[in-house]
């Protein structure tokens, strides 16, 4: 339980600033693509090395980085929008995984890969989660202007000779790293939820990028704690409980947040009405 809490906190710190960038760039689905893309790597590693945590992690990491790298390269040719490029590459990776695994299918393994298991937060899991969070926070600290600039105005970055393309690739790599760090404990898909849903919630509270990243990290941490407690008491899947808690916090944010929430627009409308000439 304590290990799960520590791992979840690391993932919240690493995932939140990335989630905010991806949501703001309308690239939230890239997280899903990457989380599906890592599965064949993990599956192949399982076939080769059995349930060895290092092998599973390494397989997933290699697959995720390949999917991220190839998709970004394909998108840069400008023949396809980025999400289209991701769809092609990750569906290809997934199909490859299914084809390779076909004869050896074991439902229990598939379930563990998709939904995770808190036993996944062993020493390698915790080390990777801590490493992913550290790499992410250091990169954001170094390049925050670059990430924000590249997201807001890629043409400007290109013309000015700033390395926008490299930053973009770094963003994809960090996203892959964080998803791999989470998938063994909380499942590939639920880890994406913990990256994107708090980021979406944060938009209802503050307007600046760094502010949103901080709020998203807090939402993610609270959701993780609540989800882990619920999982402990009611025996639900921790990944799912954490994701549901994040969605609940999103609903609260969308309802009563300080920016563009439902409550704000109701107040705004009432204000207009009271000022309208009768």
């Amino acid at each position, binding site marked *: 339980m304590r290990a799960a809490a520590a791992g979840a906190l690391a993932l919240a710190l690493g995932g939140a600033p990335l989630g905010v960038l991806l949501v703001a760039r309308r690239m939230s689905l890239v997280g899903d693509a990457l989380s599906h893309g890592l599965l064949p790597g993990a599956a192949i590693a399982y076939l080769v090395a059995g349930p060895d945590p290092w092998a599973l992690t390494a397989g997933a990491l290699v697959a995720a980085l390949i999917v991220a790298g190839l998709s970004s390269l394909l998108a840069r040719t400008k023949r396809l929008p980025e999400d289209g490029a991701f769809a092609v590459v990750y569906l290809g990776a997934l199909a490859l995984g299914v084809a390779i695994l076909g004869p050896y299918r074991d439902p229990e393994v598939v379930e563990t890969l998709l939904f995770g298991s808190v036993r996944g937060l062993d020493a390698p899991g915790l080390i990777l989660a801590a490493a992913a969070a550290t790499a992410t926070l250091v990169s954001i600290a170094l390049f925050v202007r670059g990430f924000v600039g590249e997201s807001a105005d890629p043409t400007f970055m290109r013309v000015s000779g700033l390395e926008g393309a490299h930053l973009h690739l770094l963003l994809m790599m960090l996203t892959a790293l964080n998803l791999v760090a989470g998938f063994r404990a909380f499942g590939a898909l639920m880890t994406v939820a913990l990256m994107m849903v708090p980021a979406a919630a944060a938009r209802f509270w503050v*307007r600046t*990028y760094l502010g949103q990243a901080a709020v998203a990290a807090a939402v993610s941490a609270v959701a993780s704690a609540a989800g882990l407690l619920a999982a402990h008491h009611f025996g639900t899947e921790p990944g799912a409980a954490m994701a549901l808690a994040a969605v609940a916090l999103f609903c609260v944010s969308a309802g009563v947040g300080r920016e563009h929430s439902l409550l704000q627009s109701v107040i705004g409308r009432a204000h207009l009405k009271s000022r309208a000439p009768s």
Partner: protein
Amino acid sequence: MTGVALDNLSLGYEGRPVLRGLSGVFPPGRLTGLAGPNGSGKSTLLKGLSGVLHPLGGRIDRGGLKARDIAYLPQDAGLDRQFPITVEELVGLGAWARQGLFGKVGTADRARRDETLETLGLTHVADRPVSELSGGQLQRALFARVLLQDARLVLLDEPFSALDERTATDLSRMVRGWADQGRTVILVLHDLDMARELCDEVLLLAGEAISWGPTSQALTTEALGRARRWAQACEDPAHHHAESRL
């Protein structure tokens, strides 16, 4: 400084040229206006000069200018207005473009940024996200960014189109000043009266160079007539709109 030289330059998209056979020099310290009907290649030329678009043929010699010496303000600014970036951060990118990815932005740069925001009347919106700006305010913020870039080659695509008259006058004075400081300034203008008033030189385009030289010599009745006939020859309805403006 040698300016920017074009040698038999062809530019276009997907292998189809929009502009062909362009040769000439944009001299430093001069304000050159790009004029011509819609579809004549004005914006395409700016994209080529900025490096966003690679030539289909011929070459552009930027006289040793590097990417960080170029400031480019596209017409449909590539800016994602919904992204959570504040006016201050957007404008600050200009100082940063000069210094590169690892460059440190110090107190002096911040002071200059704040001064620039003040010059352009943006101090009161400095900490607002760009999504809350009006069209005119956004254009002024983008101008502030160009100002901070302190670039030797400045490329502006219809920079005054979204602005009220007073702001347009203020900003055009600023652009004039950039050229007077010795920078090479090239801007797309739809309004020929403004081009006559503001520019040292004009390059009149219609799929190729119709005329290129000192403003009064480039915008002759004969040259404008040729541009108009080119526009009439294109049957696209958008070009009929352009005719009436030429």
